[in-house]
């Protein structure tokens, strides 16, 4: 059997520049870039740590109101909390920015590891799951992320004793 080989990762920055330029956009998007990147080592064993998820996947709890408000949604807004006790199958994703030709976002655990995180507690790998996960919108504003959304997530994490966060997008 022929061994499967990995191809090079898709260069999204280059692809997006070409794509939007061909659509007629003349201003090139500048992705945030930091020369200094923060780093904190874990201060205690993972099995004692409280873990949360921070996401930009625009995930919401399934409810009649949420599912029906499709026409009102915008992809910008404040950071909001998601009750971490909610099962993955009771959440859904509003985000449109995935490769809908190649895959789907029907399984929330494929972009927000809710069930897998709870299993990790049961197995003793992590101490606990924080009471809330956090969703921030991808509003294309470095300033807003730094000055509004980042501090809002940090405040929530500090208030809830979070030791580490897993960040996921879509």
């Amino acid at each position, binding site marked *: 059997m022929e061994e*499967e080989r*990995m*191809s090079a*990762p*898709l260069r*999204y*920055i280059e*692809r*997006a520049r070409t*794509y939007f330029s*061909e659509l007629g956009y003349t201003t090139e998007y500048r*992705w*945030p*870039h*930091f*020369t200094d*990147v*923060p*780093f904190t*080592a*874990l201060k205690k064993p*993972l099995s004692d740590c409280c873990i949360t998820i921070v996401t930009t996947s625009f995930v919401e709890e399934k409810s009649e109101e949420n599912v029906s408000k499709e026409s009102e*949604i*915008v*992809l*910008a807004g404040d950071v909001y909390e998601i009750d971490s006790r909610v099962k993955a199958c009771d959440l859904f994703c509003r985000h*449109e*920015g*995935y*490769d*809908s*030709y*190649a*895959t*789907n*976002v*029907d*399984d929330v*655990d*494929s*972009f*927000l*590891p809710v*069930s*897998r*995180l709870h*299993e*990790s507690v049961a197995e003793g*790998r*992590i101490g606990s799951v924080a009471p809330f996960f956090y969703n921030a919108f991808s*509003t*294309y*504003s470095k300033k*807003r992320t730094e000055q509004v959304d980042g501090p809002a997530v940090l405040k929530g994490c500090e208030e809830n004793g979070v030791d*580490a966060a*897993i*960040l*996921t*997008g*879509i």
Partner: protein
Amino acid sequence: MGCAKDIVEHCGVPRLLFTDFPLGNPCGEPFKAEQQKTLLSMALDLLESARAPRTTVQTPFIWPHGDQWKETFMTKEHPFLDEKGMQLWLQAKGALKAEKAANR
């Protein structure tokens, strides 16, 4: 945990667990619980083992339906957003511009 390696590394994060899947499933293929479990476990390993920022680890998984998506994603053949998605995106951009203007 992410799929857009170049973007995340351009920005710079403490740790990245990179899986070379199409955008949408950075934590594993849909409904493949065992694979998702492995990916989360690798993310937790990285949380423990990394010693410096910008540490990237690539997972060994290969998208099972071939890599044609790398050629077609975000092209005229496979546009990034459909008409509705594009409308929402422009709406979001508009909201952000209005917010910026109000804060000036």
